[in-house]
C-alpha cells in the first residue's frame, strides 16, 4: 500500500487497525488521551501507546457515569470502553491534565474492566526547579509501575532506543509540516490530520518507515513561489478528529498550513536529549516544548507562541477549533484572540460538540471568513 493510502485507512478505522496489528505482533496496547502520556517509556516497555480520540454521536453507556457537561473526548472515550470496542487494549495511562480527565481516570479504573491502569500525576506548573524534580520523580515511578504491571524490566538502553525512535519520528513529522507549509498543494488538505493520527496509533517503527517513504515521494516538490490566491490558515485548539474541516476550508479557498493542536504540531514539537539521563531528558522535553493550556509555563506563553507561529508561517487567518466543555482551552480563548486582534490577524471560533456543525453551516462560515482575508 502506498504510505498515503495506509495513513488514510489507519485513521479511518483505528480500532480495526490496532486489532489486526496486535494479532501479528502480539504486543500489548496501552491507551492514552493526551500528549503528556510518556509514550517513550510505554514503548520502551515493549508496548504500543494507542491514542484515543473520543468523539462519537451515540453516547449511551457513558451517560450512566458522566454528566452531559463533560467534553466529548472524555464521554466518547468512556463510551467506547464500556461498549467493549477497545478490546485490543490492555489498559490505559492517565497523565494528569484537566479536571475532566482526572475524574475520567477514576471512573475508567472502576468501570472499564481493564487489568492495567496507570495514573501519572505530573506537575501542573512547568517552570520551577521543584516542579522539574517532581516531574522526574513521577516519570521514574511510572517506569517502575510499567515494569510491575507489564512484568518486564526496562533498561536505560531500552529507553534511549525508544527516545531515538521518537526523535526521528518527530523530526520527520516536522519535515512534513514544513513541506506542506512551503507547498500546500503537495498534499491533500486533510493529509496532515491523517498522518498525525496514524503517528499515535500504529506500531511506531512501522509508522516511521511509512512516513519516510512518504517524504521520499515528496522530496521533489518545490516550495511555491507565492502569488497564489489561496489563504494560509492555522488551526489552534485541543484535539482535531475531524478531517473534513480541512477539506471544507480548502474548498472555501483556505489551506491549513500549520496548527497548534495537541493532536498536531504540539505532538511533534520538542526533542529529547539522547545523551542525557533518559528520564531527565524526557522530563525536560515536557518542560520546554509548548505547553497545553492545562499546564502552566507562563501567563502568556501560549499567546506568544501563537504569534510566533503566525509570523514564521506567514499565516493570514486563524481558526480556533474548540471542543465544547473543554475548560482549559475555553479559558485561554479570549486572550489568544486578543493577541491576534492586536496584531490584526483575523480569526474565528468553531465550537465542536460531538461533531462539528453541519457541513453546510461550516462551509458558509469558512467561505465568509476566507473571503474576508
Amino acid at each position, binding site marked *: 500500500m502506498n504510505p498515503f493510502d495506509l495513513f488514510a485507512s489507519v485513521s479511518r478505522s483505528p480500532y480495526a487497525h490496532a486489532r489486526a496489528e496486535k494479532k501479528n505482533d502480539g504486543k500489548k496496547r496501552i491507551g492514552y488521551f493526551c500528549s503528556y502520556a510518556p509514550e517513550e517509556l510505554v514503548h520502551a516497555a515493549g508496548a504500543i501507546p494507542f491514542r484515543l480520540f473520543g468523539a462519537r454521536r451515540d453516547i449511551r453507556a457513558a451517560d450512566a457515569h458522566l454528566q452531559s457537561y463533560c467534553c466529548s473526548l472524555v464521554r466518547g472515550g468512556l463510551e467506547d470502553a464500556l461498549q467493549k470496542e477497545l478490546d485490543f487494549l490492555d489498559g490505559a495511562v492517565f497523565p494528569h491534565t484537566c479536571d475532566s480527565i482526572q475524574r475520567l481516570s477514576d*471512573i475508567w479504573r472502576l468501570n472499564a474492566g481493564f487489568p492495567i491502569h496507570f495514573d501519572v500525576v505530573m506537575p501542573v506548573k512547568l517552570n520551577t526547579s521543584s516542579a522539574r524534580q517532581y516531574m522526574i*520523580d*513521577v516519570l521514574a515511578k511510572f517506569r517502575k509501575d510499567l515494569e510491575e504491571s507489564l512484568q518486564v524490566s526496562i533498561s536505560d538502553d531500552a529507553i534511549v532506543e525508544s527516545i531515538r525512535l521518537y526523535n526521528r519520528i518527530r523530526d520527520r513529522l516536522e519535515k512534513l509540516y514544513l513541506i506542506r507549509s512551503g507547498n500546500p498543494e503537495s498534499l491533500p488538505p486533510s493529509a496532515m490530520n491523517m498522518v498525525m493520527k496514524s503517528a499515535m496509533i500504529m506500531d511506531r517503527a512501522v509508522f516511521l518507515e511509512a512516513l519516510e517513504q512518504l517524504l521520499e515521494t515528496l522530496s521533489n516538490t518545490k516550495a511555491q513561489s507565492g502569488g497564489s490566491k489561496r489563504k494560509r490558515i492555522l488551526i489552534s485548539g485541543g484535539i482535531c478528529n475531524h478531517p473534513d474541516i480541512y477539506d471544507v476550508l480548502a474548498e472555501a479557498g483556505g489551506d491549513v498550513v500549520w496548527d497548534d493542536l495537541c493532536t498536531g504540531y504540539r505532538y511533534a514539537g520538542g526533542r529529547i536529549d539522547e545523551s542525557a539521563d533518559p528520564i531527565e531528558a524526557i522530563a525536560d522535553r515536557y518542560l520546554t516544548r509548548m505547553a497545553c493550556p492545562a499546564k502552566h509555563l507562563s501567563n502568556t506563553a501560549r499567546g506568544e507562541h501563537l504569534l510566533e507561529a503566525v509570523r514564521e508561517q506567514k499565516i493570514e487567518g486563524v481558526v480556533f477549533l474548540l471542543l465544547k466543555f473543554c475548560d482549559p482551552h475555553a479559558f485561554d480563548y479570549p486572550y489568544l484572540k486578543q493577541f491576534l486582534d492586536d496584531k490584526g490577524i483575523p480569526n474565528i471560533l468553531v465550537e465542536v460538540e460531538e461533531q462539528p456543525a453541519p457541513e453546510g453551516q461550516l462551509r458558509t462560515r469558512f467561505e465568509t471568513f476566507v473571503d474576508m482575508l
Partner: protein
Amino acid sequence: MADAPEKARDPEKEKRKIKSVSKMKEIMTNYYIEAKTARDSGKKVAWITSGGPVEPLIAMDVIPVYPENHGAMIGASKMGVDLCEKAEEMGYSRDLCSYARADIASAATNGGPIGGLPEPDFLVCCNNICGTVLKWYEVAARYYNVPLFILDTPFVHREFSDAARDYVIRQIYEYIDFLEVQCGKKADFDRMQEVGKLSVESMRLWQAVLDVAAHKPAPMSAFDAFFHLALIVTLRGKPVVVDYYQGLLDEMNERIRDGIAMVPNEKYRLLWDNLPIWYKTKWLSEKFASHDACLVADTYTSAWSGVLPLIDENNFLETMSVAYTKIYINISIDLMIDKLREMIRKYDADGLVMHSNRSCKPYSLGQYDLQKMVMKELKIPTLIIEADMVDERQFSESQIDTRIDAFMETLKS
C-alpha cells in the same frame, strides 16, 4: 388607603433564628471594608483560592481576598446571571465555572454586590480544588499585571507518593520566599506558628459546630453551615474567628439543651453533596422543611476541617501543606466514598442529595458512580439535582420541585 398592618412576628420562627448571625455579618462587613481600603492603610492585598494556605499571608500582614467567596456573594445576591452574561460577551464560554465568569466580569465592570473586589498586589493559586483556578488566576494575573504564585498539589488518585509530599513541602518554602519578596520583609516563623495554632483552633471549633447537627433534632442545618462557612474560608488564623465560632458553638449547645430544632418536626435527615445553590438556598431549605426534612450536613463545608487530623500544630507549615493536598475534592472517588460513608453514619442520614453542579467538574464528575455506591452499599435513597451554584439559568424550579417531591415520597415509604 391605610398601610397594611405590619405582619406579626411568628414567635416560633423567631426562636429558630440563630442569634450569632448579626455578629457574623458585622465581621464580614468590617473585613471587606478593610480589604477595600487596604491601599490607604498601606497594606498589601493578595487574592487567594479557597483551598490555599492563607496562614502565611495572615502572618505577613497581607489582607487575603477570596474571589470564590465573592462568587458566592454574587450568587446569593442573585447578580450571577447578569455578570455571567457579561463574561460571555467578553468571550468566556458559558460552560466555564460561574464563580470565575462572575468574578472576571465583576473585575472588568466594578459590578456585583460590593462593586468589585479590591485589586490584588499579587495572586496565590492552589490547585487542590480544581484546574479552573489555575486558568482563572492566569486571567487575573494578565488583567492586573501582578505576580502569580502557584501552589501545585498533585491529585491523590489512590496514593499520595513521597515525591508528591516532597514537592508540596518544597513549594511551601517557595511560597514563603515569594511572600518575602512581595512584602519586602522577612518572614517571622514564630508568628507563623502562632497563626497556625489559631488556624487549627478555628478548624477544630468549626468541626465542632458542624458536629452539633449529629444531634436529633439538628439545631442547625447545612444551609446554616453554608452561611457560616465564610469565616473559616477567609479569616482562619485570626483570633476573631476563634471567638466567633466559640460563641456559635455555645449557642448551638444551648439550642440542643432547649430542644430547638432548625426544622420543626424533623423526621428525615439528609446529607448534601457539592456546593450550595447560592441563589436558591432559602427556597430549597423551605422546600425540604415542608417535608419535615433537614439537610443536616454536607461534604462541602467540612472541607476546611476534614483534614484536621493530618495537621501537627508543632510542624504547622509542612503538615498543613500535605493536609491541604488531601482535601475531599482532591482525592479519587473511591477515597471519597469512604468519607461519604463516614458522614452518612455520623449524622445518621436517611438520604443523600447531590447537586450536580455544571460549574464544578472536579466535584460533580464521578457523582453518578458515588451515587450508585451509596445506594448499593448503604441502601439509602439518593437524589441528583442538576443545577449551577451561581448561574440561575441552569436552574429549573418546577422540575426540581417535582423531583424533590418524588424523592421524599420514596424516602417516606
